C-alpha cells in the first residue's frame, strides 16, 4: 500500500569558513539534487566560531546549491555553520525569500512580506535561517520572524546605523 505521505529525507553538513577579520564571505555548497525548491526546506542548525563577532545565514538558490553567507566583525578565525535540508512531498509549495534592512538609528524595525495565501496558518511553519550583518558594524544585530496571517510574514530587525541586516526565511505547510 502506498504511504499517504511519501518519506521525508534529510541532508546535513558543516561549512567551515575561514575569515581574515572584518570581512564577509559567500560559500556555495553542492547538495544532492532536491528535485524542486518548493519541496525542500533549508535550516540552520547553529553557528559557532573561533572568534567573537560572527554572523551567518543560508538559503537554497537551486535544487543543488546551498548558499551560506558569513561575516566576521572582529578578528580572523573560522565560522562554523551547521545546516540541514529536509525534502519531500509534504512540504508542498514552500515559499522562501531574503529580507534586508539598513536602519538610520538604533532600534527595532519591521518589514512585512506578502506571501501567496498559505491557507490555515495552524498548518504552516515559518522559519528564519540566521542573520547576516555588515562586516564593519559595531552594534550587535538581531532578528526575529513570525507569520502574522496566511498572506503576511513579519520580519523584525534589531540594529543601528551601519548595520545592514539580511535574513533568509522559508514558509511551508506541515505534514
Amino acid at each position, binding site marked *: 500500500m502506498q504511504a499517504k505521505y511519501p518519506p521525508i529525507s534529510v541532508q546535513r553538513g558543516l561549512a567551515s569558513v575561514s575569515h581574515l577579520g572584518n570581512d564577509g564571505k559567500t560559500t556555495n555548497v553542492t547538495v544532492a539534487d532536491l528535485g524542486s525548491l518548493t519541496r525542500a526546506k533549508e535550516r540552520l542548525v547553529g553557528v559557532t566560531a573561533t572568534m*567573537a563577532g560572527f554572523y551567518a545565514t543560508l538559503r537554497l538558490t537551486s535544487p543543488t546549491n546551498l548558499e551560506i553567507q558569513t561575516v566576521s566583525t572582529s578578528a580572523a578565525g573560522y565560522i*562554523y555553520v551547521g545546516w540541514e535540508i529536509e525534502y519531500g512531498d509534504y512540504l508542498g509549495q514552500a515559499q522562501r525569500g531574503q529580507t534586508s534592512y539598513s536602519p538610520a*538609528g538604533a532600534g527595532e524595525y519591521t518589514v512585512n512580506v506578502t506571501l501567496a495565501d498559505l491557507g490555515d496558518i495552524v498548518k504552516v511553519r515559518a522559519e528564519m535561517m540566521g542573520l547576516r550583518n555588515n562586516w564593519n558594524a559595531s552594534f550587535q544585530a538581531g532578528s526575529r520572524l513570525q507569520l502574522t496571517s496566511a498572506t503576511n510574514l513579519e520580519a523584525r530587525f534589531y540594529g*543601528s546605523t551601519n548595520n545592514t541586516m539580511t535574513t533568509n526565511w522559508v514558509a511551508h505547510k*506541515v505534514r
Partner: protein
Amino acid sequence: MKAKYPPHQVQRGVTSVTHSAAGTMTTNVAITDVASLARALERMNGVTSISSSSLFIAASVRLTSATNLEITTYASAATTLYVNWEVEYGDYQDAIQRGTTTINFPGGCTEISSDVSLSDVGDASQTRLECSHHPDAASWHGSRVALTSTTNLRVFSTGSSCNIITRWLVCRVNP
C-alpha cells in the same frame, strides 16, 4: 476512520521579557496542551530588543511539560527582549529526544564541544535537529548541534568567560 498520521499543528507566539538587571531570566508560557513531549518540537525563531545601546541578547526555549514552554533570556539591565517561538506537534513516533547541555568557557572566544548519548535514532537521514542557546554572562555566543552517530549528539558552543546553555532536540521526520 482514524487517520494513519494525525495532522500536525503549529502554535506560535511572541513573548516579551523585561530585564531589570543584567543576567538570565526564565519566563514560562502556557500553551495549548500538546499531549506528549515526545510528539512536539519547539523552536526559537529569533530575538530582538528595543534598547538603543549595543548589548548581547539571547534566548533559548524548551518544553518542560505538555502545556508549558520555558523561555530563558540573557540581556543587560533595563532591556526588553522579544522572543518569537513555534511549537509543532503531531505524530513523531513518540520519539522526540531533548535535553540541555552546559559548556563552560574560559576567557577568549573559542569553540568547545560536548558529547551527549542518545537513544538510537535509527537512520540519520530520517532525523532532524534543532537547538537554541543563551549565555549566563555578557559574551559573544553561539551553538550548533551535529549527529556523529545514531546514538551520539555533539553540541558545539562559542563563548568567553561564561557558560553557554544549549537546548537541543532530535526528532524523526517520518511517522
